């Protein structure tokens, strides 16, 4: 069965610093991975996805993620964060026959001035 682990529940960082949000997955079948962002009191917005092809995936808002099969990881990175990036970030793996997503517990990114 598939599962997702987000190791950090909270990540504080200063504005303009780089950030990496970690995600490890477990899957016995083909891997399809996603990162979503949730701003306070809003739904989830798709940041990026990995389905196949290049292991480096670029998404919206300057974020990117790298699929590493040997380490079963899909870490999210941004070279320079803004105050507006403060939000909760969820990693997810697609599992099940109906395209159900299995989510990690989320990482709260707090960007300080």
């Amino acid at each position, binding site marked *: 069965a598939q599962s997702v682990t987000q190791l950090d529940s909270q990540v504080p960082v200063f504005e303009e610093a780089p950030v990496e949000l970690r995600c490890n997955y477990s899957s016995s079948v083909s891997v*399809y991975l*996603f990162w*979503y962002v949730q701003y306070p*009191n*809003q*739904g*989830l*917005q*798709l940041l990026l*996805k990995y*389905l196949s092809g290049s292991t480096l995936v670029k998404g919206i808002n300057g974020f990117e993620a790298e699929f590493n099969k040997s380490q079963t990881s899909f870490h999210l990175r941004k070279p320079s964060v803004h105050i507006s990036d403060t939000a909760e970030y*969820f990693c997810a793996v*697609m599992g099940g026959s*109906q*395209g*159900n*997503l299995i*989510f*990690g*517990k*989320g990482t709260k990114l707090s960007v300080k001035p």
Partner: protein
Amino acid sequence: SQTIHQWPATLVQPVGSPLSLECTVEGTSNPNLYWYRQAAGRGLQLLFYSVGIGQISSEVPQNLSASRPQDRQFILSSKKLLLSDSGFYLCAWSSRVGSNQPQHFGDGTRLSIL
């Protein structure tokens, strides 16, 4: 373009009262539809999903039920709410065209049970 609407945005209900949350999708046909609950510190839990009208799959046993009376309408219901039903409820859709399509979420309903 496709849009997804959920209402109400917030809801305060007493224990034992009924519940009806509605979700509609525009700009697409025959979508997969999903209901999730997000409780503090527990991430997102898939409650129900539907691949077509009248077809509902439940992921966890609970006090809630779902229905899909029309192709782009998904309703979450309860006959008697429990305190443990409090949370942030999210509806999502995905396209059935192609494979491994991402899910797109509504803005959610925050449900507080008193």
